[in-house]
């Protein structure tokens, strides 16, 4: 059978963006959120479980620096009802601006035509794989007028994954310099957000912000495709950022 016919027969597989707060783990692993524990000791215990120091205990309250979460799942109770674990948010609106605030989106001209250059600055492969899913039938990034381009010369957004290794720092900066104004930088994944488990260290910077000015951060290890879609839609001004679960 002809591939064209095959493609037609497969039908439309594109899915709507999940808006709710109960996205299943098959689509998004979610992120830990600030939790009020039974006792200060419980909060200190849970903070000690976290290998990256993303959980900070203040009395019984264990707040979460989401940029640092690497999805080790150790603070997540194996059973949703069980006590002792950190509460989790189950949505995809991970993205937030610098310092947890709003980001300045690009102007209206970009809402239906946004070109993105991805730069792998030391990624483990999972963020890149999730980015590859964006062009698949399920997410279909093109429907939003967002395109992944091979040259930074035509790119409006620099999408950085990985903690920025010392040997990728130069190429990353060159790519940023090669982009025309106006431009935005989106750091995708825990590594690009804050170095993840790799940085800052001997050969890694503490995320993309150490090399280029970052406008938007998408935490997660890796962030699910819909979280990246959400961030790209926000950066081109097509929708508000609405970091609903950031603290909540």
């Amino acid at each position, binding site marked *: 059978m002809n591939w064209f016919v095959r493609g037609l027969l497969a039908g439309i597989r594109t899915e709507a963006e999940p808006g709710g707060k109960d996205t299943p783990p098959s689509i998004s692993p979610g992120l830990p959120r600030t939790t009020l524990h039974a006792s200060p000791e419980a909060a200190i215990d849970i903070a000690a479980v976290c290998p990256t120091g993303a959980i900070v205990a203040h009395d019984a309250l264990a707040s979460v620096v989401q940029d640092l979460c690497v999805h080790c799942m150790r603070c997540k109770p194996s059973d949703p009802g069980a006590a002792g674990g950190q509460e989790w948010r189950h949505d995809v609106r991970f993205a937030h601006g610098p310092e947890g605030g709003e980001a300045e989106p690009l102007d209206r001209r970009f809402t239906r035509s946004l070109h993105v250059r991805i730069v792998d600055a030391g990624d483990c492969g999972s963020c890149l794989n999730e980015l590859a899913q964006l062009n698949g039938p399920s997410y279909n990034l093109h429907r939003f007028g967002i395109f992944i381009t091979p040259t*930074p*010369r035509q790119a409006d957004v620099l999408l950085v994954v990985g903690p920025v290794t010392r040997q990728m720092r*130069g*190429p*990353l900066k*060159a*790519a940023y*310099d*090669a982009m025309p*104004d106006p431009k935005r930088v989106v750091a995708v994944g825990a590594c690009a957000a804050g170095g993840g488990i790799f940085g800052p260290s001997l050969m890694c910077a503490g995320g993309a912000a150490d090399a280029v000015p970052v406008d938007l951060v998408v935490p997660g290890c890796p962030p699910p495709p819909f979280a990246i879609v959400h961030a790209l839609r926000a950066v081109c001004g097509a929708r508000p950022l609405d970091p609903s679960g950031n603290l909540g």
Partner: protein
Amino acid sequence: MNQWELTLTLAAMGLCLVGALVCLALSERAAARVLAVTGCSAAALSLVAAAGVLAGGASGDRILWSLPVLGPLAVGTTPLGALFACVASLVYVPTSLYTTRYMEHYEREYSVRAFSCWYCVLLAAGIGLFICRDVMSFFILWETVAIASAALVAYEWRHLRNARAAFVMLAMSEAGTVAAMLALLLARSGSESLRFGLPAPALTTPLAWSIFLLSFFGFGVKAGLLPVNSWLPRAYPIAPGNVSALLSGAIVNLGVYGIVLVNMELVPVRFASEGVVVLIVGASSALIGILYATIEDDLKAMLAYSSIENLGIALTALGVAFVFVAEHQPLFAAIGFAAGIYHMANHSAYKALLFLGAATIDVKLGSRSMNRLGGAIRVLPVTAALFLVGALSIAAIPPFNGFASEWLTFQALLRSVELAPLGLREVFALCGAALALTAALAVTCFVKAFGMTFLGTMRTVQPTVSEASATMKLGMALLALECVLLGILPTYVLAAIDHGGAAIFGLGTVNQALVPPFFEPNARPNPLPSDFVATFHALGAQIGAGLPGRGLVVMLRGGAANPVVFAMSTTYFTLILAVLLGLVYGIVRFVTRGRRVLRVPPWTGGLQPLLAEMTYTATGFSNPVRVIFDAIFNPTEVENERETIHEHFRSAIRRKREDVFLADRAVSAPLASAVRSAASLLARMHHGRLAAYVAYTLGTLLVALAIVTLT
């Protein structure tokens, strides 16, 4: 009858000969100056004389000198000769100007005086050849040209390669001369004298064919036609740059002159098949020439192969003319003739320009290999701009001159619809296809030549190099100006060609075919239908009517079989292009006013730094052509070795391929080996026994006596 033109031409020759003697007496540097002054003024005189002839018509022949054995030497101006003299002079003037400072880098090693002397002799013969009106004087000057040009090619005689190339050139040239002389003698065999200006004798078919083949391939040696052009890609690249420009700009044209002289004026072609031979040789020369040019990485060798291509195109157009002459359609024959001569003239201008540009690069940057050049525009901006004009012209990009003549050539080929025999039409179609491919490859070739030499990263170019001297730039600029003018004023050029071809087709045939009187609304009788005139008037085609030419549109009408009008005007095109470009520039400036322009280094994929060895080489650029046409190039693999350390570490892959020029492979090499084996057979006679030698002598005597007795 006015004879001042003849006197002027003779004076120019005399000036050159005096210059040659003066050069020998002076210092090295002064010799080059004298050469430049002599060359420029002699060529200018010749140009004025030729223009006078074209405007005023031919003089009668005059016996200059009567020699006891060779008979009277006749000279006289003819429009055809004047046309060629005009083209040649347009090359001589700028090249001589260029030579003023160009020879300086030879001063230490070679004698500039000797060079200047030979140069003046070449010029004298090159100017004088066009006023020769009998076989003897023609061949005296023809030989002078051959010897002088061989001497100039061998100028850097300390390199064995140069000496050998000059030898091959001279040898092939002599062989061609013998054939051409034979053809001329046969052409005059029925007449009482060897003078040109006599009516053509009646000839038998074999004799006519002999004259055609001998003259075509004999003169074809000089014109660089396949398969008798082995010398050309050897000689051009190694000659001094200005000599290459002279050879390619003016001396090759002598071959065309010879072919036209014999086959259109002295013994007009009678058979369409003669034209077919010209067509096929011309088209295949064009295609093979440009193929070799495209894969060539040596700038001058590339230009040499490209000369073969361009002369091939010109000859294809002349082939069209021959066919139509034989088919008794003088109007279309005139189109072919005009296209051929026009292309030849264009080639003279841009090829001389390109050779001078290549010479400038060679002198300033020390290399002719496009694989080592690159980024030269940063140190030689003026040379680059002038070279670009030449490259655009040769690639037939309108409004530059190559376009006008190639357009005419294609139009001439398309006139095949006016021919009855199907076979002829097929040949025309195939030649048209070959030329179309040639034109496309020419663009590739010169994109490569300009891009690899002047653009990109500086591979070995030193940033401290300074631009060429004023006279060198002026010489090239004159040629560039010629390229532009020949391109944007085709109707004036055609008018000149019309005069030049008057003796063959009658005055006005070319103009009638291509620049119809329609553009002179008052011309009576006007052969065009009145509604036709009205339509074209409405289009504004008469705008050039008031000018001294015949309008600015080249137009040809199909015959009865094909009532279509083909027209083009590079003049209008240029005007419109200028307006549009200006408009676009203005709009862009207006739209982007106040906008900041960001200049950043090229995006290299993040690779820092991008080294020159990581950019395309000339070989790499043209490699697709090499791969596709591998069957034609049929290269021999000289080396293909893989070296490894410890079995697995590749330390070197050595590869080398050698391309042998098709003419060498197919003709020269077999011929040489045949001659060598014949010689070795003959050598067996030389065994040193006296008795045998005496027997040879006696035998020869007997045979000679027998022949004498029997006849």
